[in-house]
């Protein structure tokens, strides 16, 4: 049979978000693969420049529906570093608690999706049922299931009381029992191991060379975790292990994630037991002094980097976000080439991709001529002025809302 090119995406049942993978098929094997980004650019970084520091928290929290706390934490850390603010200890502990509960819910969500991708609906249904426990817990603590609105510059916005502490501990016990069962399923069930072992290999050297982060990197045997390497919040005072695995395949990534959930329970218990008393936030002036900072945060998907530059006003001059998916996307073609078509969905899912968080550009192509147009900010502004001029409206004297 001749080789054929099949598209996987931008619209495909295996992908939750638009992304284009072109696979050159040789029978059932993948001969070559290309990835094209750029279907879901939302212009958030630019939008941050026209909002105040406080408003930006709300915007950046909505970069990702799953690691929302990670993005907002990473951003406020950067702003606090510029302003030279030390947050109260209780606030650091509360951020850690929400961050770890978020990791639990994100990893459980991933495990369910992994089950769906390998056609194991039962695992998907069971895991997502139990994920509701942690979602309910997050709602009870913060008022929201996904965008918690917990962070603010200088601390957190909500305190937790003793009844909520009790609820956390009770839910953690049930979740821990459930998770131990899933660990058993993922490490002993033969039909799962048959689908995951040896699939999407990424040896240690390749993982380092291609700049993989998070569970993907740790599954290739590299001990790298921002919570240990560059501790933030309360992590330097907590006792936990960095989970690594030497499988360097999808099975390894699964094992790393399920054991990380167990570590998160351990961290949550310590946080709740050792929670110091005191204020939960310090007052921060609206205007942040001139400076720049970048902060690293271990999101469930890997290292999340935010860079903020301030110019002394109440709005940032530049905000740059590097979502963990961008770092992991580079190794995707390596992982799927030479494998089976049937394994492509699970290999892509195994980096726990979040394409909307990653896109920074949109590519518009004329479907008939194939011509592409690229505009920078000034070009786009000029284009709009010309467009309106043709229709009798002159906007050339209008002041630009943003400096280029």
């Amino acid at each position, binding site marked *: *049979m001749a080789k*054929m090119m*099949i*598209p996987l995406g931008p619209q*495909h*049942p*295996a992908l939750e978000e638009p992304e284009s993978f072109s696979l050159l*098929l040789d029978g*059932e094997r993948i001969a070559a693969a290309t990835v094209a980004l750029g279907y879901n650019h939302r212009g958030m970084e630019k939008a941050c420049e026209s909002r105040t520091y406080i408003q930006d928290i709300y915007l950046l929290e909505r970069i990702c529906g799953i690691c929302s706390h990670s993005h907002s934490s990473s951003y406020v850390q950067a702003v606090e570093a510029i302003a030279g603010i030390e947050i109260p200890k209780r606030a650091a502990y509360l951020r850690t608690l929400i961050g770890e509960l978020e990791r639990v819910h994100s990893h459980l969500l991933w495990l369910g999706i992994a*089950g*769906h*991708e*390998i*056609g*194991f*609906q*039962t*695992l998907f*249904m*069971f895991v997502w*049922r139990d994920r509701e426990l942690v979602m309910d817990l997050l709602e009870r603590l913060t008022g929201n299931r996904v965008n918690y609105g917990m962070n603010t510059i200088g601390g957190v916005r909500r305190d937790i009381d003793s009844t909520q502490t009790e609820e956390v501990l009770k839910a953690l016990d049930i979740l821990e029992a459930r998770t131990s069962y899933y660990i058993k399923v993922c490490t002993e*069930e033969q*039909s*799962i191991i*048959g*689908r995951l072992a040896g699939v999407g290999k990424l040896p240690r050297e390749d993982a380092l060379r291609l700049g993989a982060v998070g569970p993907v990197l740790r599954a290739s045997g590299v001990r790298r975790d921002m919570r240990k390497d560059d501790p933030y919040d309360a992590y330097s005072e907590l006792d936990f292990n960095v989970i690594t695995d030497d499988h360097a395949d999808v099975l390894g990534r699964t094992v790393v994630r399920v054991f990380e959930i167990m570590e998160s329970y351990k961290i949550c218990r310590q946080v709740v037991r050792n929670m110091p008393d005191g204020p939960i936030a310090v007052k921060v002036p609206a205007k942040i002094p001139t400076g720049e900072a970048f902060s690293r945060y271990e999101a469930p998907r890997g290292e999340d980097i935010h860079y903020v530059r301030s110019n002394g006003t109440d709005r940032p001059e530049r905000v740059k976000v590097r979502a963990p998916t961008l770092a992991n996307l580079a190794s995707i073609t390596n992982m799927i080439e030479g494998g*089976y*078509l*049937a*394994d*492509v*969905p699970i290999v892509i899912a195994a980096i726990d991709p979040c394409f909307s968080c990653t896109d920074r550009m949109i590519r518009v192509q004329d479907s008939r001529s194939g011509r592409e147009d690229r505009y920078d900010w000034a070009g786009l502004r000029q284009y709009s002025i010309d467009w309106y001029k043709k229709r009798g409206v002159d906007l050339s004297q209008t002041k630009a809302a943003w400096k280029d």
Partner: protein
Amino acid sequence: MALSLINILIFPGFLFLSTLALAFEYVDRKLCARMQNRVGPPWYQPIADFIKLMSKETVIPTEANPSIFKSIPIFALAATASAFLYIPIWGQRSLYPFDCDLLVVLYFLTVPTLTFFLAGWFSSSLYAEIGSIRAMTQLFAYEVPLYMALLGPALLAGSWSISAITAFYHQNPLLSLLNLPGLCVAIIAAQGKLERAPFDIPDAETEIVGGTFTEYSGRYLGLFRMAVDSEMVALAALISAIFFPALLPANPVLGLLVFLIKVLVVVFILAVIKTAFARFRIDQMVTFCWKILAPVSLLQIVIDIIAKGVILS
């Protein structure tokens, strides 16, 4: 003449089979849902789905051959409906038994898989083509073990007629215990034939969207789904006729009831298999069928030949 028409169109023919197909689709879906800790659909869901599909707009790809595209689902349904006529459902005899009807039923039950292949191939879509190739690859993997598993009991009974096989095991119920390995093979191969998880490789949605049925919609998709459901009933009926022939009352009404219970048991086992495993990869599926199912079905034949020599002589 009138009676034959009623037999073919109403009972035990087309209408009865369709009703059973929808009823067992409900049973299958509900069982899976309960095993997955979900609520599951209400009893009328399969009927509602069918009516909805029938009333929906049908889109035919411009590059597909419209006459083939439209006629293929009817072939699939006709083949399973014909197969069902030769399976005994209320006693030891089917409606029109003849010598070698087992083979005819097996061939009729192979036709749906071939129509899936043709449907995918003629809808000229990439995903459908890959689904077609997978359906064919899978056919070569499970068909041989399935035939051999059914051959064993037939050898022991000394007949190719389903009615004669049922009558033989009805007289010697203990002998059907010898066919247990064949039963296991037949049920697993049936799961492959029906393209259900873990062998839903030809329409693995996360890999190749809708597989062979990617381009099908509306009426024709509804007919295909009906054909798949009827195929499940026909296969379950065939398995229960050959492997659980005991407990057949002479009263036709009671006989029908017993038949339904037996089919229910087979559907239950199929549902358990569906919920308990992750989807196989096509290479794993072929290896599994040739390395495990085929030897077990050969073993079944050996057991039956020895039993024929030792016990019956």
